[in-house]
């Protein structure tokens, strides 16, 4: 096939071009943009796209990790490695109140997510005065995400009002805002879970090894397989960690993230398992189950990403 015969871009080429266009628009129009980096696979793709958008320059904004101190150890390792590789500044924020009160997922349940992540994010954005924040959310993840704009406007108190979203036409994004207001930007809105995996595969993008199956110490609780990632994991009487071949479909705080038993050691095997699976991706996370069907929508109105 001669190159001039190629007249149609593949879906991944179009998604990539769209995301790069979005990232460049934000860099050009926002005063102080930041990329939220959670070290998961979606963040990995977003970071790769940012590097691609500005090559040979490094992306002209920092990475922000809103940390809970309860992430998997391997996530911290990859985070630091990727910051170095991309040449971007890495900012890490810990909610000082959560730190002081020792908020943790074992004793505090929903408060853990609320204080470390939702409050921590707002505080972090305010601390450095960021007016635009990239996030790796996708519209196929959850119902209320399906209706969110790519440029999602937030009030000065970080609230989201689904009824007064700005119309978003063509690829024209309105990044204008008043002082104190901000915009959350989702460059991979139109990607599906399969697209993300395939893009990682095609571009050899580094991801946390926890996505691949390996023997890991686990306990089973409330129907979830949890990994004993460090000594802070309080074992219940009679509980003994069991070595199982597991992997993770999503990554968050290790005590809140359920593993699946798996033998998938390569990316194609992981993708294969993903496609043949019968439960949706976020099911492994406790956060979506709060407050019934409208859980995520409610969290977003309160400022969660």
């Amino acid at each position, binding site marked *: 096939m001669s190159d001039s015969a190629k007249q149609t871009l593949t879906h991944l080429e179009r998604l990539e071009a769209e995301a790069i266009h979005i990232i460049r628009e934000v860099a050009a129009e926002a005063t102080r943009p930041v990329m939220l980096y959670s070290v998961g696979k979606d963040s990995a793709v977003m970071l790769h796209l940012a590097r691609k958008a500005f090559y040979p320059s490094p992306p002209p904004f920092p990475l922000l990790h809103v940390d809970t101190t309860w992430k998997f150890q391997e996530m911290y390792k990859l985070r630091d490695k990727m910051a170095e590789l991309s040449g971007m500044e890495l900012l890490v924020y810990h909610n000082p109140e959560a730190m002081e009160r020792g908020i943790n997922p074992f004793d505090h349940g929903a408060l853990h997510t609320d204080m470390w992540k939702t409050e921590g994010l707002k505080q972090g954005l305010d601390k450095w005065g960021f007016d635009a924040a990239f996030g790796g959310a996708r519209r196929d993840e959850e119902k209320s995400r*399906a209706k969110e704009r790519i440029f999602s406007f937030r009030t000065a108190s970080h609230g989201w009002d689904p009824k007064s979203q700005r119309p978003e036409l063509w690829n024209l994004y309105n990044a204008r805002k008043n002082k104190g207001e901000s915009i959350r930007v989702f460059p991979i809105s139109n990607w599906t879970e399969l697209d993300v995996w395939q893009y990682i595969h095609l571009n050899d993008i580094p991801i946390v090894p926890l996505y691949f199956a390996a023997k890991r110490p686990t306990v089973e609780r409330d129907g979830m397989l949890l990994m004993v990632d460090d000594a802070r994991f309080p074992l219940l009487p009679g509980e003994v960690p069991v070595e199982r071949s597991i992997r993770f479909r999503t990554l968050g705080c290790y005590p809140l993230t359920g593993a699946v038993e798996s033998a998938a050691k390569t990316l194609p095997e992981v993708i294969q398992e993903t496609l043949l699976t019968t439960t949706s991706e976020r099911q492994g996370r406790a956060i979506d189950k709060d407050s019934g069907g409208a859980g995520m929508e409610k969290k977003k109105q309160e400022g969660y990403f």
Partner: protein
Amino acid sequence: MSETTTPADPVYVTDALIGEDIDAYLDTHQHKTMLRFITCGSVDDGKSTLIGRLLYDSKMIFEDQLAALESDSKKVGTQGQEIDFALLVDGLAAEREQGITIDVAYRFFNTEKRKFIVADCPGHEQYTRNMITGASTADLAVILVDARKGVLVQTRRHSYLCHLIGIRNIVLAVNKMDLVDYSRDVFDSIVAAYAAFAKSIGIDSFTAMPISGFKGDNITTRSPKTSWYAGPTLIDHLETVEVNSSLDADKPFRLPVQWVNRPNLDFRGFSGLIATGTVKPGDAVRVLPSGKTSTVTRIVTMPAAGAEPGDGDLDRAMAGQSVTLCFADEIDCSRGNVIAVADNPPEVADQFEATLVWLNDAALHVGRSYWLKLGTQMVSATIQEPKYSVNVNTMEHLAAKTLELNEIGVAELTTDKPIVFEPYTDNRTLGGFILIDKLTNATVAAGMLNFSLRRSQNVHWQAIDIGRAAHAGLKNQQPAVLWFTGLSGSGKSTIANLVEKKLHRMNRHTFLLDGDNVRHGLNKDLGFTEADRIENIRRVGEVARLMTDAGLIVITAFISPFRAEREMVRGLIADGEFFEVFIDTPLSVAEERDVKGLYKKARSGQLKNFTGIDSPYEAPAKPEIRIDTTRITPDEAASLIVDKLLGDA
């Protein structure tokens, strides 16, 4: 789940391949193309059900979601004990309560050939703006018609909007065929009615098909119940229709510059998304609006991990790709410029006829200055009174003074500097724009440029030998505008008069433009509607500007309640010559003074739109001078203003 809702075996998911040969499956998936389409129809035509069906049939619904769906169907569904597919896609809590779709939602599914992004567009009249949003990125529109109801007002409106926004591929899906016994006569008469209407609004062709989203007829498999129908199934059609980006590649090369990439002195690249055409190293290009030419040396993208720098360079790039171009020459090129093929560049102009779709609760203010974003260009634009608005139900042209939420109209507009453009029908990127309110920052309108007005090429600025510096020099002063603003009765005219007297005694050449006097002459054709008040201020601003060109110190005393208009005037006047003087008198004080008895009239309802009573006053955020009349006398105020003016000047 009841028996009747069990779908026909989905034929387009390669389950077997996933299990047997994942690499082969990934290879197939990698080479898929993408089609974006919208579904629209009136409230009960079954859009959400159809999309739910597509997701369900393509196995995009997981077991946990299905379990939730089954229990929800029983609780809040509208299909009795059967599965209500609409619940899959009606996302937001408010909608689930009302049982309607109120915003655009995007859904994803795959077949063997394509990935699809569906925009689910609402049918309610008040949500035209959401439909336009969904349609703007679509390659194709599925217009749903309820077989029992036929072509409705909403069907016509949605078809018109899809055509207006430039969607070439229209599918007329006659839905709920199961409820009319799969009658060919019903189908044929609906198609005939639609064909007549489509032709009248300029839709040349469309594809009609009889379907049932609920039962699954002619969605993925041909239905035995419509043996009289010889056309494709919905999925067949969606898999084969040509997408926009392929068509765009055949047009002349255009790349709106988003970002200048300059990591060091040795590299200077221009980044952007190619709107139309293709480009290769060696191509001659022209940068608009400057018209400077050069040659493309490299098309840069990031090389794979571990590869050499430069390994990511492309031999060719086409419409739809995000790239970075390097040139052989050091020519000026920055964000907002357009890189185009050298021998066939787009036009540059500053006056246009445009079609506008109004998207905001606040109506169009004729004469007000809005931000206009087109491609990567951001300029100020003012809109003239519409030539007409369009009744979207009958397509009639109506006389219009303004455009309200969800209204569509045609108007002339002027930009404050020339922009690079093409008519929307030739190029969506260089012809489509949004208008942004300068105060609220809301996206208030979507627009499509139809053509430039010849005027903009023919009216040139008269080059004048005696310039403004010469005028000012002769008077030995720095020109300025003292723009007084404040409530009626705040003391504007009193203080402005004192200021002029003081300046006159100091041998300054001044002129006082007073609100009442101007309305007797220059602006006697204007009333007191919001639009007229804006025009009043605009004219005064222009006169003030001419007077500063003549070297004068201009003093104006107008309530000028709206921040946007004051900012518009500020934009007209040379930098550093505009002084916003805020006569800050509390409403209670001004009302107590009530020198002209106007507050009394306004309070009793005899006077409408009175600032401070039933019309807002937007106080300046950062005036150059603020006078608190409750603390100093008019004479002290005047001295303070003169000192500030001459001290700063």
